[in-house]
């Protein structure tokens, strides 16, 4: 079963359109939704959670339409938003009590263990926490009601590298259970590159690609060559290029480039930048 299936999802705003989005997140996998600010990542997440009305398309969460008893579905979803959203005057202990009355499967023992593991003071007001601590509490809440799907909207942005690494490791741990899945959006591509099984690129409301990360890394490569060498290549092989006084760096499809050319591995970040520039 797929944790998430999005078909032809469309949402219109003044000056922005999320255009016919199609995504599939299989159970047990982590999908990274990558896009620049304003690409449509948060809109997609709000549509998945039925927080805003869509103008077209369908969304299925764990086999059920997301408008069909969404409250029951949300019992199995843990969400962390960019701004977390926990009231500033509340302590972690109070948040635990509120969530115990919110989620049927809330587990106090799991929540307490996350508070200890993440060194979150239980009686300190949320407003006194650093951004990293706030995010950690949001993540502890999202993980303490036995969710099957985690949805994280820019949950790692603004965190220092040590906290980011810790948090990313927790998401990875979560998907060791093959019924668990994660959809994580970010514009910090390096975080997603570490943990994601699937990568989706969003740019100006359009999906540029959605593919398994390993396949992407196998299919694409970077070629450093001269402009003349590049012009001799099959035009379908070249997916993006950067011309500088020192030569050309091109994003290429490895199997369409002669074997004698030196194609080096491309990172997901480089792949994204090349594709966004090419689509402009």
């Amino acid at each position: 079963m797929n944790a998430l299936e999005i078909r032809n999802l469309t949402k219109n705003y003044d000056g922005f359109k999320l255009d016919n989005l199609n995504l599939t997140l299989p159970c047990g996998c982590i999908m990274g939704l990558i896009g620049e600010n304003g690409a449509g990542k948060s809109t997609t997440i709000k549509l998945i959670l039925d927080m805003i009305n869509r103008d077209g398309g369908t969304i299925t969460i764990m086999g059920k339409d997301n408008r069909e008893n969404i409250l029951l579905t949300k019992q199995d979803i843990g969400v962390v938003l960019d701004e977390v959203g926990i009231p500033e005057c509340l302590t972690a202990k109070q948040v635990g009590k509120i969530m115990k009355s919110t989620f049927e499967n809330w587990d106090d023992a799991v929540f307490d263990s996350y508070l200890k593991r993440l060194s979150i003071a239980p009686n300190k007001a949320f407003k006194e926490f650093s951004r990293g601590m706030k995010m950690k509490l949001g993540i502890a809440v999202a993980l303490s009601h036995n969710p099957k799907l985690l949805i994280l909207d820019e949950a790692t942005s603004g965190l220092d590298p040590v906290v980011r690494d810790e948090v990313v490791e927790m998401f990875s741990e979560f998907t060791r259970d093959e019924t668990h899945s994660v959809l994580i959006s970010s514009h910090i591509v390096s975080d997603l590159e570490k943990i994601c099984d699937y990568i989706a690129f969003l740019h100006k409301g359009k999906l540029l690609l959605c593919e398994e990360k390993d396949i992407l890394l196998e299919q694409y490569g970077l070629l450093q060559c001269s402009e003349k060498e590049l012009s001799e290549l099959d035009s379908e092989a070249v997916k993006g290029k950067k011309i500088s006084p020192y030569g050309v760096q091109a994003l290429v499809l490895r199997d369409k480039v002669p074997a004698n050319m030196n194609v080096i591995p491309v990172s997901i970040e480089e792949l994204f930048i090349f594709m966004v520039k090419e689509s402009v």
Partner: protein
Amino acid sequence: MKGLMLKDLYMSAKYCRAFLIIVFVFLAVSFFGDENVFFIIYPTMIASIIPVTLISYDERDKWNQYSGTLPYSKAQIVSSKYITGLLFGGSVFILSVLAAAVRMTLKNSFSWDALLMTAVFLLALGVIGPTLLLPFVFKFGAEKGRIAFYVMVGLLCSVGAVLAGIGFNVGLPSDSISLSVIIILASVLLYALSWRLSILFYQKREL
């Protein structure tokens, strides 16, 4: 909805302490001091609009977005505020009426008619704030909602002044029982209508 109520109670305990102190000071003044209507009605009026203050904090803290990710419907989110208003407004209303009863008894001026009219007057004033304000707040947000509310109150006052100017009379009954029944029914009906309208507005609002 229990979680939402619990959250509002925690927030009220933190942010509305000053309100509650004012409520008790005013009640004490109305009890021991001169017969000043302001000190009698003010506690109920401010207690009943505590939900509006809580919504402002919710918006500042982005709770309004976060609550959209939790297993609560928009109707439950709206209802929790109306119930919080009833809890605070209702408690202070009861305290105010009790204080008025004791005061009348101590001054040997107790009469059921006078107590009933005081209670009805308090009820109407306690209900009018949240009834008019909350739908605007749920439609436009706390800040814009307040502005829309003031504009509407201004318009209503202007219409009232014009109607009074042309000698319009709604013809309310003069006996206290009939008048009280009408005001109680109107208050309950308006609060219920406001509740329903807020749910409709909030369901259409995109967070």
